[in-house]
């Protein structure tokens, strides 16, 4: 059988569609895979949404409320509000991969809002209604909280509860907190007044929460000392209340368990037992302690009013990042991770990425972000640990946050094997970058060892000789902490092990020394994975001694290197490894003879293979021994090898060395430069001591202490100002006697009589001067 077809029909209906299909298949082989996977997910979620909405439409009355509770409120309650996949900040980052397990609701925010509103109108007045209110308020905040709809919703929900119930009090406190955070202090005061009624359940938690809000409000109204007194007594009462409850629990029989009082946070309401002495510190107690700490510092510094911080979170292409968490975290709170839904300053960004905090107690803060995997994928927030926001009374600060695209590495990447005598690193140029720094990590079976290989690279490529890579990291070591034999081979051999997998990364800096972007970050899909930052350097082979290191026979390796070096005094590698092993052993055994021997060998190595790390190690060694002649020799060599400019640590160390040599003015000059260069202000104590020793008055030294905060001690950035303030107070009694004692002790410090001073600070009655000198002695 034949068919008859005109040419035009053949082309139009057969050949054209066929060729179109094949072109699609060839040009975009992934087209089908990707788009359809996403389309499938989208379609599935749309179908699930339609099905759920239909199910809801079909039900009425209490069955409908039950359905909303089960399908809308319950799933969202499984994760607390302000819970994010990734928490990012300068001092800390945290991942919650568990989030991927959580059910993702197919409902859109507008569906949820409608259903929650309905539940609040018609659902039964119980804990689920309270949870529904909290969820609704969160959704309102995300969409911008127009006309303060969130507060109106809470006020409306309040009418559903009996006026003296625990839930009514809790909701009133939420209103008060929202008013306080919005800077409406009068309204917050009125709401706090309304919340003061006795309740049967959860009284201790609610009392504590009330005090926490009142303390903040009092401070915001300029009554700092009153706020501190209130928080002190509230904390005492809270601890006593729980001790009483705990005692009751221990004596009472198990029938009491049904009345287990719900805690305040939604995250804590289901699974957390009431906090008693053996349960550690509850989040409520932590909150009160944190507030107490911040109030103490603010009162001591004489701060008497709150501040406001506003900003927007965007990507560098201008897209606002909505539904992201912004946490303003006080210096004293940075040691712990972000609390779910109980941070003092937490907010979720609206559609424009906007956020605002009011009533902020002055102090040092850092911002941390809460982001979803989708938001952070391929992007980075280049915050650094030294990025502090100094909030002063009455400040109205703007802190705009911008996510930056990760920069891409070009070569060597993807496990490339290199054999040359140098490695040429290349990466994507970053607009506005003044310079880059290159870090590497050596990965072997026993662990990994990271080091910054080059800083201040002007170009987006650099060639580094293999020898320099072998020396990178100096003589530092990493171990599992079980004696010196447990030192990781990766930290000893580093790049010299041709079998080690190596990885590298780049940070791009602007002219002010701030990181603009980096190569390391979240790379979660095929497009953002980019080049893998791995390569192998197989320019040399392992010697027999090296193999002993790999096999973790370090004692034998040490002897083998010694033999190699004796046989060939020009063998720089054997000499370097010998010294490295000796120093690793010394750091464990503290056998001073070993260190001296290693340093004598290092003097030979630095001649054989002049390296900046070696020269600095020698300078540091002679600094500790006040051997100024040798110190100066090696510091000079270090400077020469480092391009005639010391790094920030080198400059500060040299400044102290100058001071100890009696060259006070030169030391002050170097310390002044170091303060500007080093954002950590690690040596500010030495600087203040040098200024005082040079006869500067306490008032001008106080200004320096405030200008260069150091964030390492318990009182953080205010440690040194507070020490100076106490010196001023102590001086006020007997100025002449104080001045004489101060200059006497500073003279001893400058002369290096540290042990005698140390002893003096511990003898007799404590004083502000002793505390100051003690702190100065701990600098470095």
């Amino acid at each position, binding site marked *: *059988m*034949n*068919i*008859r*077809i*005109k*040419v*035009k029909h*053949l082309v139009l209906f057969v050949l054209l569609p066929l060729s179109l299909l094949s072109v699609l298949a060839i040009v975009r082989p992934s087209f*089908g*895979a990707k788009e*359809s*996977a996403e389309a*499938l*997910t989208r379609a*599935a979620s749309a179908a699930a949404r339609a099905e759920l909405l239909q199910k809801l439409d079909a039900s009425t009355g209490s069955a409908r409320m039950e359905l909303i509770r089960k399908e809308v409120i319950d799933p969202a309650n499984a994760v607390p509000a302000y819970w994010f996949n990734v928490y990012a900040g300068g001092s800390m980052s945290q*991942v919650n*991969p568990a989030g*991927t*397990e959580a059910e*993702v609701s197919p409902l859109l925010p507008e569906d949820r809002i409608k259903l929650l509103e309905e539940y609040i109108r018609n659902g039964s007045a119980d804990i689920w209604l309270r949870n529904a209110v909290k969820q609704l308020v969160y959704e309102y905040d995300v969409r911008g909280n127009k006309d303060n709809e969130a507060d109106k919703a809470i006020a409306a929900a309040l009418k559903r509860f009996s006026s003296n119930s625990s839930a009514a009090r809790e909701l009133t406190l939420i209103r008060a907190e929202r008013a306080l955070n919005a800077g409406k202090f009068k309204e917050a005061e009125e709401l706090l007044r309304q919340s003061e009624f006795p309740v049967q359940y959860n009284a201790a938690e609610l009392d504590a929460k009330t005090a926490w809000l009142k303390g903040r409000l009092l401070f915001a109204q300029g009554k700092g000392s009153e706020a501190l007194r209130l928080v002190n007594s509230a904390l005492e009462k809270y601890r006593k209340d729980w001790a009483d409850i705990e005692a009751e629990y221990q004596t009472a029989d198990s029938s009491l368990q049904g009345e287990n009082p719900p805690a305040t946070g939604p995250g804590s309401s289901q699974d957390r037992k009431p906090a008693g002495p053996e349960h550690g510190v509850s989040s409520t107690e932590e909150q009160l302690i944190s507030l107490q700490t911040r109030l103490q510092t603010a009162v001591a510094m004489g701060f008497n009013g709150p501040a406001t911080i506003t900003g927007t979170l965007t990507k560098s292409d201008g897209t606002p990042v909505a539904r992201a968490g912004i946490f303003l975290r006080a210096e004293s709170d940075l040691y712990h991770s972000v609390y779910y839904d109980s941070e003092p300053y937490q907010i979720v960004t609206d559609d424009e990425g906007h956020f605002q905090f009011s009533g902020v107690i002055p102090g040092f803060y850092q911002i941390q972000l809460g982001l979803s995997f989708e938001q952070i994928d391929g992007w980075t927030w280049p915050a650094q640990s030294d990025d502090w926001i100094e909030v002063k009374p009455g400040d109205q600060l703007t802190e705009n946050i911008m996510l930056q695209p990760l920069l891409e590495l070009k070569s060597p990447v*993807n*496990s490339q*094997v290199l054999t040359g005598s140098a490695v040429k690193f290349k990466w994507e140029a970053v607009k506005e970058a003044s310079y880059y720094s290159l*870090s590497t*990590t050596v990965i072997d079976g026993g662990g990994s060892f990271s080091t910054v290989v080059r800083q201040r690279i002007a170009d987006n490529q650099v060639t580094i000789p293999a020898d320099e890579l072998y020396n990178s990291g100096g003589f530092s070591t990493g171990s599992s902490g079980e004696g010196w034999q447990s030192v990781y081979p990766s930290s000893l051999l580093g790049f010299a092990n041709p079998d080690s997998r190596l*990885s590298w*990364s780049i940070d791009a800096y602007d002219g002010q020394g701030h990181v603009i972007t980096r*190569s*390391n*970050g*979240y*790379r*979660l*899909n*095929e497009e953002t*994975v980019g080049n*893998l*930052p*791995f390569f192998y350097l197989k320019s040399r082979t392992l010697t027999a001694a090296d193999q002993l290191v790999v096999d973790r026979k370090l004692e034998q390796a040490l002897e083998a290197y010694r033999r190699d070096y004796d046989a060939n005094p020009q063998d720089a590698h054997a000499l370097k490894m010998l010294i490295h092993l000796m120093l690793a052993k010394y750091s464990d055994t503290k056998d001073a003879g070993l260190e001296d021997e290693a340093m004598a060998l290092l003097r030979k190595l630095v001649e054989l293979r002049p390296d900046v790390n070696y020269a600095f190690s020698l300078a540091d060694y002679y600094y500790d021994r006040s051997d100024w002649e040798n110190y100066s020799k090696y510091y000079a060599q270090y400077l020469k090898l480092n391009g005639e400019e010391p790094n920030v640590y080198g400059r500060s160390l040299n400044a102290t060395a100058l001071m100890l040599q009696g060259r006070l003015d030169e030391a002050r000059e170097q310390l002044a430069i170091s303060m500007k260069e080093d954002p950590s202000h690690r040596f500010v104590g030495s600087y203040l001591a040098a200024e005082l020793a040079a006869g500067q008055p306490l008032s001008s030294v106080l200004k320096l202490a405030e200008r260069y905060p150091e964030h390492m001690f318990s009182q953080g950035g205010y440690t040194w100002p507070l020490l100076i303030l106490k010196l001023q107070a102590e001086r006020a009694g007997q100025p002449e006697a104080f001045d004489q004692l101060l200059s006497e002790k500073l003279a001893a410090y400058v002369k290096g009589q540290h042990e005698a001073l140390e002893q003096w600070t511990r003898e007799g009655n404590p004083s502000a001067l002793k505390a100051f000198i003690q702190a100065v002695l701990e600098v470095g």
Partner: protein
Amino acid sequence: MDREREAIRRQLEEELHPLTFTGHARVLRQTHPPALRARLSAFWNKELEIPLGPLGVAAAILVTGAVLFYAPHIGTKEQQSVQMPRQRELIESGGNTYWKDVYEQAVKQHEH
């Protein structure tokens, strides 16, 4: 005279009888060549006769091939979109954070 001419004409007709002139079209094409458009149109409207048997076999082979090639992909994709969120694991490597499955795929591409 006329009769003679008539006789010759008849004889000629008789002799030429088996021959017919079929070159009209060719002559016309040479004297009046058709426009390109007309030629294209002619080709466009030309009718082809295609035997159905071989065509059917070719089509069957194509369809089977396509189904065999795409079917497993479609299947796994559906499964992945349902299962992946639960099974995925984050790993940190070379200072980056990856989904394990994406990372392993990338490594497979490059590792020797």
